[in-house]
Structure formats: structure tokens, C-alpha cells
């Protein structure tokens, strides 16, 4: 449309096109319905206005007509529902193998950490055409990661991870907003998503302070906090072996089986008593309050990196002597 008065934000992600298609269909439907009712009212009001000696004709109603304008709207609504649900399904299931960005929302700023180790505040640099999965949590209140150009919004809750994904299709700089009211500077908690050509992205990546990848950072924290004393890789330590754990079902002590996703790892670090792996005793100390959100993200990234076979992983955990991690199971 003419860009002096844009009617929708730039389409910069794969889902933006399909969301706009449904939007245009619905605008057309709404316009058609509003205009037709408007015209009917105007026509009836003029043709049947009060005139001397003309009595109104009492009409009781007609059930077939009522049924038609019950069933037809219902039918149209179901079509819209399915269409909307399909888009939502795609939006809510991140593709496997997407590059991950850990986001920590704090009252009135966004802190982002790339897998490669880059840390950013209120800025997110992503390459064009690559799936990016955001693993987000908040340190205080509920925020909401919203990029209008990607038609993507996901609330960021304290105490758990929420995920969202997108694949940018057009280079450029797009708005990043916080869409859930979070206090004084809610309107200041904004930033930019910079979509770059892959080459530019690699240059930007290289330029950043090379602090080693997030997983490597996670591994050092893993040592520092003494996790390795119980979670051994070679022998059967007092804690479960974490190699190849991510994404796999875990048999719990009280009979339930849960999938080891990010939330499971986070909960098992912060309050281990919640889910005890069968065959192990509940001796792990509580890390709630001892581990910052950034360290937690690093630990989760490190545990995930234990899935990759040692050769291919971006950071080969040096502590991985004998045991050969199995192929990561399809999540």
C-alpha cells in the first residue's frame, strides 16, 4: 500500500504473509457485513418511513430465515477458526535445529544472549533466512516479546521459559516492543531487531567480544557450582548422567514420565525436589536464588550441547571421555 499511510507493518517474516492474508480476508468480510447491514437499514428506513395511512405489517418472524443466519455465520466462523488455528500452530511449534537465543526480560530492558556467546541489550541481530528460536524468561513481572514486523508476540513469564520462533525474510531494522504492562517504563522497554545478510551477520558475530560460546560458558559454570561432582559422565555418579538428556523422556521416581525440555532442566536446577529421577535420592541442593537467569540460560545451553555428537558440536565439552552420547531423539 502507499507508504505515507501504511495499513500494516513491514512483512519481514515467513508468518507475516499468511497473517496478513487472513487479516485482509477478515477486513473484507467485516466491511462487506457492515456495509450490507448499513445499506439494508438505510433502504428500509427510507422505503418504510412513517407515512400517513400506511400501517406497519406485523411479521412474526420466519424460522428458516433464522436458521440460515445462524448456520451460515457459524460456517464462516469455522473457516476463519481453522485458518487462524493453522497459522497459530505453525507459530507455536519451533522447527528443530533453529539457532537459539536466550532472552531475559528485566524491568524495562531486554537482555539477549546468542548461542555463539554474543550478549546484547535491547538489540537483536539475526541473519536473514535462518530460523531463530527465542527461549525467554523474566526476572520480575510478566513482559511480552513483540515484533510487529514478524507478527510475533509471546508473553515472557517469571519462573518458567516460554518459547517463540521466527524466520526473518527481509533485511532491515524493525521495532521490538514490550506488549504486557510491566510498570513505570513499560513504554520505554523497546528495542530493535536488526536483520542482516548472512555475510554481514558473520562479520558482526566475529566483531563481538569473543567470550566463547554460551555452552562453553555454561560448562565453566557447571564446574564452578560443583555440578560435575554428582553428574558424572564416566561413572554412575550420585546424580543422573546428563549426556544426551535433552529432549528425551525421563522416568520419575513417582512413576510419571516427563520430557526433559528447557522448563524441566530449569525446574530441576532451581527446585530439584519437584521431579526426582527414579533410582536417585533427593540430595541435590536447591539453587533457587544462587543462580542468575543468565547463568541458568548458559547451563541449559550447555546441557543441550551435550546432545550433539562430540565431533560436530560447536563447543566440544572437553570433559567427555568414554561415553558416546546417543543420537538426539526427535522431540
Amino acid at each position, binding site marked *: 500500500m502507499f507508504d505515507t499511510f501504511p495499513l500494516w507493518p513491514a512483512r519481514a517474516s515467513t508468518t507475516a504473509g499468511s497473517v496478513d492474508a487472513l*487479516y485482509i480476508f477478515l477486513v473484507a468480510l467485516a466491511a462487506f457485513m457492515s456495509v450490507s447491514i448499513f445499506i439494508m437499514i438505510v433502504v428500509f428506513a427510507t422505503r418504510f418511513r412513517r407515512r400517513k395511512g400506511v400501517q406497519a405489517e406485523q411479521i*412474526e418472524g420466519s424460522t428458516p430465515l433464522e436458521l440460515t*443466519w445462524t448456520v451460515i455465520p457459524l460456517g464462516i466462523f469455522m473457516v476463519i477458526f481453522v485458518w487462524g488455528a493453522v497459522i497459530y500452530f505453525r507459530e507455536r511449534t519451533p522447527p528443530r535445529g533453529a539457532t537459539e537465543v536466550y532472552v531475559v526480560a528485566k524491568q524495562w530492558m531486554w537482555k539477549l544472549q546468542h548461542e555463539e556467546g554474543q550478549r546484547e541489550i535491547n538489540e537483536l541481530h539475526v541473519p536473514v533466512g535462518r530460523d531463530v528460536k527465542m527461549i525467554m524468561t523474566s526476572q*520480575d513481572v*510478566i513482559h511480552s516479546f513483540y515484533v510487529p*514486523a514478524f507478527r510475533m508476540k509471546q508473553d515472557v513469564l517469571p519462573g518458567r521459559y516460554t518459547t517463540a520462533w521466527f524466520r526473518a525474510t527481509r533485511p532491515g531494522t524493525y521495532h521490538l516492543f514490550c506488549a504486557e504492562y510491566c510498570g513505570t517504563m513499560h513504554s520505554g522497554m523497546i528495542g530493535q531487531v536488526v536483520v542482516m545478510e548472512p555475510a554481514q551477520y558473520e562479520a558482526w558475530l566475529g566483531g563481538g567480544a569473543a567470550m566463547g560460546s554460551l555452552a562453553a560458558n555454561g560448562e565453566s559454570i557447571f564446574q564452578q557450582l560443583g555440578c560435575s561432582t554428582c553428574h558424572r559422565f564416566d561413572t554412575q555418579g550420585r546424580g543422573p548422567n546428563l549426556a544426551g538428556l535433552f529432549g528425551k523422556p525421563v522416568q520419575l521416581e513417582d512413576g510419571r514420565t516427563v520430557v526433559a525440555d528447557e522448563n524441566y532442566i530449569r525446574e530441576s536446577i532451581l527446585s530439584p525436589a519437584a521431579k526426582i529421577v527414579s533410582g536417585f535420592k533427593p540430595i541435590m541442593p536447591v539453587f533457587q536464588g544462587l543462580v542468575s537467569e543468565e547463568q541458568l540460560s548458559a547451563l541449559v545451553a550447555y546441557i543441550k550441547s551435550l546432545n550433539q555428537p562430540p565431533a560436530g558440536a560447536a563447543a566440544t565439552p572437553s570433559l567427555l571421555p568414554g561415553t558416546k552420547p546417543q543420537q538426539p531423539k526427535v522431540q
Partner: protein
Amino acid sequence: MATAAITADRTNYLNQEYGIKSWLLTTDHKRIALLYLLSITFFFFIGGFFALLIRLELLTPAGDLVQSDTYNKLFTMHGQVMVFFFLIPSIPAVLGNFLVPLMIGARDLAFPRINLLSWYLYIIAGVMMLHCILTGGVDTGWTFYTPFSTAFSNTKVIEAGLAIFVAGFSSILTGLNFVVTIHRMRAPGMTWSRLPLFIWAHYATSIIQLLGTPVLAVTLVLVVLERALHLGIFDPTRGGDPLLFQHLFWFYSHPAVYIMILPSMGVVSEIVPCFCRKRIFGYKFVAMSSIGIAVFGFLVWAHHMFVAGISLYSALIFSILSYMVAVPSAIKVFNWTATMYKGSISFATPMLYAFGFIGLFTMGGLTGLFLAALGIDVHVTDTYFVIAHFHYIMVGGAVMGYLGGMHFWWPKISGRMYPEFWGKLAAMIVFIGFNLTFFPQFVLGYLGMPRRYWQYPPEFQVLNVLSTAGSTILAVGYILPMVYFLWSMRYGKIAEENPWGASGLEWMTSSPPPTFNFDHTPEVTWEAYNYENIPAPEEVAVER
């Protein structure tokens, strides 16, 4: 005037007795309705004042009129005052209180003293809310989302929560009174299929008030307890779950929007047949769609939480249910429009408001379909698209219906006619001002401007300026009726028993009615809206 001018000295509920005590201790449902009318108009103008300040602040991208904290309090107070102190009581407590006994041929509501208690609870809540506003206000948004409201806000959340807790009971008692009155105190012959649709709408509203409000009450109790005693029910750092609060809150707050719109639908279902001189089209369907809205209204609450972190599959369920609840509203709009076919339509002010209602409510309802579509909701929730949607329903629908009802029954309430010319002028101003205020916000919303923003990127400014301009026109449009209603109390033409030639028992007693409503309990032998044997008043359409 054709009928003999009824001398004003005939005793009616207004001049039955005078003095403050006769008003403050009255148990007459008509006087309590007027007490409510005064108090909700007072709160309407407070909420409107906050709205104007918000719109003024949003004239410019930068936050330069008020501090950000003050802005946060402004939109919170605007929301809480408008929702809990104007929209929810407006039609049920004013027009409902006045008309429900009259329309079913009863002499008063079932529990008159509980009705007065309901007003006093409303006043106590109002005083608490005013005290909260004047001594600092609250900045959590009208939704009180935790953990911000319980752990991070240092404003008067407890006081605001208790004020709304008390206001909730006022709403429960009104609902209780209506349900028992409609069940037990109908005049002989007034069967359920002869009830005016205004009564059906209020019956459905009362069911929601009764079953929904207590859940909000207990949620607010938990928030207040958590804030006062540092419990951990909604605090994630102590094992609580903020989403549980959202579920409990929206379990009430979505049915609450039907508490706001159903009475207006009842008003329009009375106005349209009267000014078309015709029976309403498909009476049973319109009546049952009110009950349908009340029932389905309770099943759809989590469509406010599609991006809040609920699971994918529950989002699907709530999306499909939200489409189910849209069908009864569509039925009503089609039936009102069909009523006009082959009618004898005259254009008095109430009819203009009814036209406005049908138009704007249709647009509000249709944009609701956008929000129920999951794919689009992810993009537009928590943006100005949602703000425009619910203002189209609440301001375009509920307030238009309320004003239409006030004009339609003003002769019955005050015994005087409002000035027709000024009535039509105000209706036009409100319609134009409303559209100019809220239509640009749809575009703003889809462009991605989030709600509750004190400052916004510059590219959204043009649309915000349009919206602010519209809000000033809307403000003028709302002040006009208050002026000429007061004026008409003194100088308005004396209204006779049935100035519009409308059907309904309330038009068969004097205007204003005597304290006991009817001299002899009416016997109903005719069907609802029997306009074929009610003579149309000659002069209503032509008189200027």
C-alpha cells in the same frame, strides 16, 4: 396536545414526599434508580476526564504532559472507574431498577431493602475508590495482573481491590433482585413468552452477575491477602502461578463484558419495534440468544490469554468456543434489521441511538472475530486493535444503548419530554466523535502500537492526533444530554402516559408513575409488542 394536559400536581413517586431522608432511605425502586443515575453519571464524568487526559498525553509521541507513573495511573483509573462504576451498573441499576417491576406489572422489586443496600454498597465502594484516586491511585491496569500487582506495584492496590470487591456485591444484589422479581412477581397473564425483551436481557445479565462476580470477589481477596500477608499464591518465586490469576480474573471479566452489552441489547430490542410500529422479528430467537450469550459467555474467558503462555491446545478450544459465542450476537443484529422490513419507521432520538448501536455494535462484534482468530490474535492482542474493539462494543454499543434508553424512557422517569432537536444533535455528535476517536485505533493496532504506552514511536502520531480530536467531540456529545435532561426537568413539555405509543406495561401507568406503579395490578391478555392495536402518536415524528 391531544390528550388533556395532565396537571403536574397528581401525586407520583417524585412528589410523594420530599426531603433528604425520603431519598436516602427510600425503598422505592424508582427512586433508587434515580440515586443510581446520579452516582453513575458522576463516575462517568470522572472516568471520562481520565480518558481525555490519556488522549491528550497521546497527542505527541514523547511523554510530555504527565509523568509515566501518572499516565499508568490514568489508564488504570480510567479502566477501573469506567468498568466497575459506570458500565456494569449503568443500564441494570438505572433503567433496570426503574423498569423491571413496571414492565412485569409488579409494584416493586422482590427485596426493596436489599435494593437500597445495593446502592449503599455502590456508594461505599465509590467513596473507597475516590479516596484511593485522591491519595495516590493505583497503577496496575484495571486487570491487576500479578506478580506486578502483588509484588512490584507500590501503589494502593489493596484499597482499589477492596473498593471493587464491595462494588461487586452491589452488582450481585442487583442481579439477585432481578432474578427473583422476574421469577416470582410477574402480573397475572404475563407469561415468559410475553415478557418484553428488555426483561429477557436483564434476566440473562442477572445470571452472569450472580455466577460471575463472586469469582472476581474471591480473586481480589486472594490478591489483597497475598499483598498484605506476603502469601505466595500468585507469586512465581514462591511456587505460585501468575497464570492462575489470569484464569480466575478473566473467568469473571469476560462474562462482565456481556453484563455490559446485554442490557443495551434489551434497550434496542424495545426501541426498534416501537419506532417501526412492528412486532420484533423472531421474538423467541432474540430472547433465547440473550440466554445463549449468558451461557456461552462463561466458556470463552481464555481468549484473552492466547499469548499469555497457555498451551497450544487449550488456545484452540477457547478460539472455537469464542466463535460460538459470536453467533447469538449476530442473530440479534439480523433480527433488529429484519424488524425494520415493512415497518412504519419514525426517527426520534431513541431510534437514532438504536441505529448507532446496531451499526457500531456490528463493527465491534466483527472485529471480535479478528481477535478470536488465533493467528491474528498473536499479532493484535495487547495493541490498540484490542482497545478499539472493546471500545466499539462498550462505548459504541453499551453507552449508545444507555443513552437511547434514557431518551426513550425519560418521559416515564421525569414526566417531561427532552428537547427533540437537541437530542438528535447530541446523537449525531456522539456518533461522529466516537468513530473519529476509535476507528484510527484499529489501524494503529494492526501497525503494532502496544496498549498502555506512555510514549510511542513517531510514525504512529498522525493516527493518535485523529483519535484525540475525536475524543474531544465525543466529550461534547456526552455533555449535551446531561445539560438538556436537567433543563427538561424544569422546562420540558409535560409528557403524557404513552408519548411514543409504545407497547409494554410501563406505558400503561401515568408518567411519572405513582409510588405503587399501578393503581390496579394489570392483567396481561395480549402478546408482546402488539403494535397492531396501539395507535401511533401523530405528532411525535414531526414536532421539532
